[in-house]
């Protein structure tokens, strides 16, 4: 198989296998398989196949809302991965991004066209700084970025909670005061056309970031040198590239993507900062999105929609009598199959070789 078709075929095989696992579990536990597909179709198109209300755009709105943050965390993981780094710190970067967005929303007063960009930028900056920590430690002390970023996920979580409770102030010990209207991504227009979903302007920065990701990676010298470091660190160093600086900057950019996801959730889906009891999994969803999307912008967009659809379908599945957690099971199965790609590739390779070599071997036996 060529590299290009591999990037398309292997994720699709993984997705099919993942859904197969989900289907088997549903059958084994005596639930309705068609219920799952009805729920998935409804969350994606708004059309109800089981009768009742024929079309409800609210579901499409909620589907987009679920998709936005995980595309951003997907970009985050993918960007670091293209530099040969393995950063699973999106979760923590998202948390500090949320905290920074809350701060900018609460303490700045400005008209919306200034306030909103400031909120988004401060979240990106906070995420970037959070990403700089594993980057710096990796570049200058050769500390594994995986472990550091796991640890920082929890530090970020508790830092956000500390800020909400002790700095921004919280009357009910759960959330901050409501943000002023000028800081929010919410849009009465978008809500009205999707029958009161939580759809908001957050998709605009998401689309911008998809283009930015693709542009930096594919079209700039800087992106080229990042990829070079990813392919072969020593060769890149020999070619005169600043390997250490690239590692730090790459993880900062990755952090900025995740930080923005925090802002999109905090000032788009919600309109207040929240105390978060346990990780909400957006960071890990991002890993799934990036892996299935082969670390390419277009792949991340599609994979983000796939997993967004699964997330949005959860309440609909629960209505169909299927425990909502099936979505997480299918997602995990898909990730596991993608991780096994190496093995799957070997199996396909052996199979193809056998097919290709069989007739030749026949003819040559003289």
């Amino acid at each position, binding site marked *: 198989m060529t590299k290009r078709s591999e990037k398309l075929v292997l994720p699709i095989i993984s997705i099919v296998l993942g859904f197969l696992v989900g289907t088997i579990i549903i059958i084994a536990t005596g639930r309705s398989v068609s219920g799952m597909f009805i729920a998935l179709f409804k969350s994606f198109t708004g059309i109800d196949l089981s009768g009742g209300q024929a079309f409800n755009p609210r579901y499409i709105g909620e589907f987009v809302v679920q998709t936005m943050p995980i595309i951003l965390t997907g970009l985050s993981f993918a960007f670091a991965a293209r530099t040969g780094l*393995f950063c*699973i710190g999106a979760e923590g970067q998202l948390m500090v991004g949320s905290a920074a967005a809350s701060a900018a929303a609460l303490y700045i007063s400005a008209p919306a066209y200034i306030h909103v960009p400031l909120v988004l930028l401060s979240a990106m900056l906070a995420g970037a700084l959070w990403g700089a920590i594993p980057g710096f430690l990796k570049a200058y002390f050769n500390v594994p970025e995986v472990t550091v970023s796991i*640890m920082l996920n*929890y530090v970020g979580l508790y830092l956000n909670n500390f800020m909400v409770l002790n700095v921004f102030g919280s009357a009910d010990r759960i959330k901050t005061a409501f943000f002023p209207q000028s800081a929010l991504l919410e849009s009465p227009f978008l809500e009205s056309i999707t029958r009161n979903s939580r759809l908001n302007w957050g998709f605009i920065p998401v689309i911008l970031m998809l283009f930015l990701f693709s542009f930096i990676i594919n079209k700039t010298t800087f992106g080229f040198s990042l990829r070079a470091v990813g392919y072969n660190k020593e060769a890149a160093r020999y070619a005169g590239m600043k390997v250490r600086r690239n590692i730090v900057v790459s993880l900062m950019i990755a952090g900025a993507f995740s930080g923005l996801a925090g802002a999109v959730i905090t000032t788009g889906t919600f309109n207040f900062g929240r105390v978060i009891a346990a990780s909400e*999994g957006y960071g890990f969803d991002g890993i799934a999105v990036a*892996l299935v999307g082969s670390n390419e912008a277009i792949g991340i967009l599609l994979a983000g929609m796939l997993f967004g659809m699964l997330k949005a379908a959860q309440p609909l599945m629960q209505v169909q009598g299927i425990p909502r957690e099936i979505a997480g099971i299918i997602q995990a*199965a898909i990730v*596991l199959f*993608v991780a096994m790609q190496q093995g799957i590739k070997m199996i396909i390779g052996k199979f193809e070789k056998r097919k290709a070599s069989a007739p030749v071997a026949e003819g040559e036996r003289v």
Partner: protein
Amino acid sequence: MTFNAFLEMIPISMMFASPIIITALGGLFSERSGIVNIALEGIMMVGSFTAATVTVLLESTTPFAPWIGLAAAAVAGLVYSILHAFASINLKANQTISGTALNILSSGLTIYLCQIIFHQQRTKVFQMSIQRVTVPYLSDIPLLGKLFFTSIYPTFYVAVVLVVVTWFVVYKTRFGLRMRACGENPQAAASMGINVAKMRYAGVLISGLLAGLAGGIMVLTTDIQFTQNSIHGTGFIAIASLVFGKWNPYGVLGTGIFFGFSTALSFYAKDIPVLSAAPIEFFYMLPYLMTIIALVIFAGKSVGPKAAGEIYDSGKR
């Protein structure tokens, strides 16, 4: 804080420390054999769900229900970890990704099964759990008796015994030597006729057994039922104490107790004048922050297994 309050904190610290230590020992086996296992958190969830479910289902028939629950938890953890072993050893999957997938899978699978069995997103509350014990005679020893042998969870003794057993197995047996060789230089080990895949399977499966057991212990000592948040990051604290304890069983024991103590401290801090000013979140952060600092200090020195996390390629030199 009075001395009595301090005495009260010790068993609580040990209660939190036991699952951390046992899980970290699991991580030690896995990493020493060369496979990074960040799925410990997920394996703990599986163990914790199994122990809670078995206890709830059996407690009306036998007084040993919690102990049967723990045994079941260990077996469930072992079986679940086969997935990680198969993906990362046979199919050469990236170990961190495979571990991440198992973490997502476990939170989905356990709550899914709760919904099927109990029709809610958690298990039923168990009436029986693991009770504290006071060891006769030993508890009469001045000071030490009060600290370590009076109204303490027996699971702490299990943890301590496992530390010694782990040390013996890893450092004093042929099996341990071979396993460590696979974590340091698998190619060299293979050239001496050691079956690298088999040793790594052993490492990962033992880690599953221990993490499953620890998850069961955690839910049956600190909780009243299994929920989505029963483990809340303890698997990652275990990884932290593995790193902080320099991949050594006694180091793990020390840091496990320390992290258990710092968890207990977060509950008692408000009563301690010096500490009451510090935000509670600071205590939650402490293990993670300390691990980052430890990583920087250890950087460049070879403390961890050298080949851990690398995909085994028998042709590499």
